């Protein structure tokens, strides 16, 4: 059946890959350039730029991390339904080296002594701050860099490992690769959990350096999984619109992606509410300060948007199987969730800079467009010479024949 597919279906991007790479690449570089110029000319020590960039970057990173988690999961549970979709996940996850480079606009200013984003970098400030001086053994530039390098190296190695092994199997067809990836996925998943948790602590939670939440990493992870399923659906819609994978990916696969999207919309709300309720109940100032700022001023409306728009509305919207099997509606909710996820990160990060007012501006938009475009360009680059389906995976036939009720 695998042979049948490769002749029956268009599973190569061919000239589409360089085209997408060029367009998205140019847009991405240009948009980031504009963001950088606007940020540098604002004369606020990159304060606005760094915050806007961090929001957009964490958004893009969540897609890459979500994809890495998703690929690891498919190997871990030996999933069969997803084999025809798995290569798309591998392509998205293989952007990890690119995402490591894109983290430089955050990391380089840190090394150059810019303290706009992370106040714990400011030694004079830390010296007078009881809480931060106690956190110094963890929150210091040296250890931060060591951790950051570890995260990115681990993510890059794991994602490239899955990608390369899967491509090698396309050539040799040996089922041995599946068994090996299955073995690697278990420890890979454990370290993935640890690195995502601490990366969320380091890059996002430490912007509010006094505050702490042990569930914060899980909260960010929930956003990662929501976004990757949204992106998977959208990428497949695009590819099928371009005449690729038309006979391989069916409504049954969309149905499963929709189920996962629905499940993790609920998971996000569960984690978000768990975090909120414990702080609300204990009502201890050092814990509630995070929410006090984020339900004050304009942020109040964003907080309610998240409750309604990131949970209640998509919860009912995605509940029906007819929605998950409809291209239009699954695509609609995928875009909706990606927007909601951006608002989520914006609501988490931005109040450290603008405590009362939401001032969504050009730097935010250009950063987002830039990073999203570069992610698309990177994915197209990864896909330029590969099959869009793991053609020699022994489970491919089952995945092609997969039916969902």
């Amino acid at each position, binding site marked *: 059946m695998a042979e049948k597919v490769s002749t029956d279906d268009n599973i190569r991007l061919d000239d589409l890959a360089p085209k997408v790479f060029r367009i998205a690449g140019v847009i991405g570089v240009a948009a980031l350039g504009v963001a950088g110029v606007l940020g540098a000319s604002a004369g606020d020590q990159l304060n606005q730029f760094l915050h806007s960039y961090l929001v957009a970057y964490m958004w893009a990173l969540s897609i890459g991390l979500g994809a890495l988690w998703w690929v690891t999961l498919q190997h871990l549970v030996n999933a069969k339904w997803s084999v025809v979709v798995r290569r798309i996940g591998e392509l998205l996850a293989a952007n990890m080296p690119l995402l490591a480079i894109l983290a430089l606009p955050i990391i380089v200013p840190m090394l150059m002594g810019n303290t706009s984003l992370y106040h714990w970098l400011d030694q004079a400030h830390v010296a007078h701050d009881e809480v931060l001086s106690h956190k110094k053994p963890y929150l210091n530039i040296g250890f931060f860099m060591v951790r950051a390098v570890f995260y990115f190296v681990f993510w890059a190695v794991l994602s490239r490992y899955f990608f390369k092994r899967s491509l090698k199997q396309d050539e040799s067809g040996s089922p041995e690769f599946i068994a090996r990836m299955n073995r690697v996925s278990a420890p890979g998943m454990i370290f993935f959990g640890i690195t995502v948790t601490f990366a969320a602590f380091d890059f996002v939670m430490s912007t509010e350096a006094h505050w702490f939440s042990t569930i914060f990493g899980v909260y960010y992870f929930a956003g990662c999984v929501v976004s990757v399923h949204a992106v998977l659906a959208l990428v497949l819609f695009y590819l099928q619109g371009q005449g690729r994978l038309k006979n391989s990916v069916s409504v049954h696969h969309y149905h499963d992606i929709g189920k996962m999207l629905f499940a993790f919309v609920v998971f996000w709300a569960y984690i978000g*509410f768990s975090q*909120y*309720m414990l702080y*609300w*109940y204990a*009502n201890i100032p050092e814990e509630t300060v995070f929410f006090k700022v984020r339900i004050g001023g304009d942020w109040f409306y964003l907080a309610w948007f998240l409750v309604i728009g990131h949970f209640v509305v998509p919860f009912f919207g995605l*509940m029906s*199987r007819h929605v998950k099997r409809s291209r239009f509606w699954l695509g609609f909710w995928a875009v909706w969730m990606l927007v909601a996820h951006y608002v989520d990160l914006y609501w988490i990060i931005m109040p450290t800079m603008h405590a009362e007012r939401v001032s969504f501006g050009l730097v935010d938009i250009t950063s987002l467009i830039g990073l999203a475009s570069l992610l698309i360009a990177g994915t197209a680059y990864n896909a330029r010479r590969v099959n869009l389906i793991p053609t020699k995976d022994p489970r491919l036939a089952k995945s092609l024949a997969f*039916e969902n*009720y």
Partner: protein
Amino acid sequence: MSDKQTDAKKSTGEAAKTEPDAPKDGAGTSKGGAGGTPLHGLIAEYETPGALLSASKKVRDAGFKNWDTYTPFPVHGIDGAMGIKPTVLPWIVLGAGLTGLATGILLQWWTNTYDYPYLTSGKPMWSLPAHVPVMFELMVLFSAITALVAMLALNGLPEYSHPLDLKKYFARATDDRFFLVIQASDPRFAEDETWKLLEGTHPTAVDRLEEDRVTPANMPRPLVFGLVLVVLGALVPFALIARARVSTSEKPRIHIIPDMDFQEKFKSQRMNPVFEDKRAMRPELEGTVAVGALEDDDHLYRGKLGDEWAREFPAQIPISDSTMKRGQQEFGVFCAPCHGQVGHGDGMVNERAVELAQGTWVPASDVTQEYLRKQPVGELFNTITHGIRNMPPYGPQISPEDRWAIVLYVRALQRSRGATIQDVPEADRGSLK
């Protein structure tokens, strides 16, 4: 599914079956029926899910309605092959989930906010965040139980007896065989034709399926009796609760969780050996101020501007109708018992004390008298705060804002005492005549 009213005519007079408990080797070697036993339907056996799927499609296309398949595991594609329509179960579960959600909200509102308001952790009586977990759990509980019960009900389960129970070989439906049963109740059922149809689907065997006349149709009495006992037993706790609600008891209550009822902690006004002065309540530390107790505004908190009594109200107190109404209310609560409703010093406590004539009572002042009219508002405020003669201080009981409101109301009483028609707004003068 089962139809006990099967048309009996078809099977009457047919030859008795030789081996009622074994499928025939090969299709159609015998189709005898036990004399007099009505026919339930025809059963065909298949070795693979694929064979069952293709047989199902044929039966579906032949237009049968009352038929079913039996498999050891969920066979992919069987729904389509059998032409089964989407189930209504999801809608039932959605309804149950929303009912559970509403029950969670109502239950908590009624028990905690309405019927027995109970303050927990200083939170408002109606605190949605605290109620969400129970709403969530009840939603899941209602959904899960309804999904199970409705699924059983939609399938007509549980069934006490079924003709298939009599076929020993049918036990393989839980192991390695796939069965298809067409019921005689189907309008298209005609024994010979249907038999041929099933034979044409390449089964390993076809068999007649007679109505169950071996197992009693009704549940055995001991089982019914046992179930009734269980139901009645389940009512006992409710009966005990109902009785406890309307009766009194002299026995001390049972302490189920003693370490919660008798906690090792110090209560106010008790001894605490830890401290040198043995007081459980700790006095404020010298040189410290409690949060929100700084009171660094002399005008607002002490009625003073420098060394003088303030002649104006502090900026924080709006001179408005609502302040006046608040002052009237607080005056009625704290002042009127001695000073009287309009402040003439004729409150009920004062009247009674004068009547007793014990010699220790300083009569309550008329708050509208001349020298009090001339007193600055700050001094009136100070009197309320610290008391005067045998009037006790009200500072600890009434908030500063409310004390100022009382001063405002006292000023109104003073002005109304010597009021002339000129003090009434022109528009309202007519109503006094």
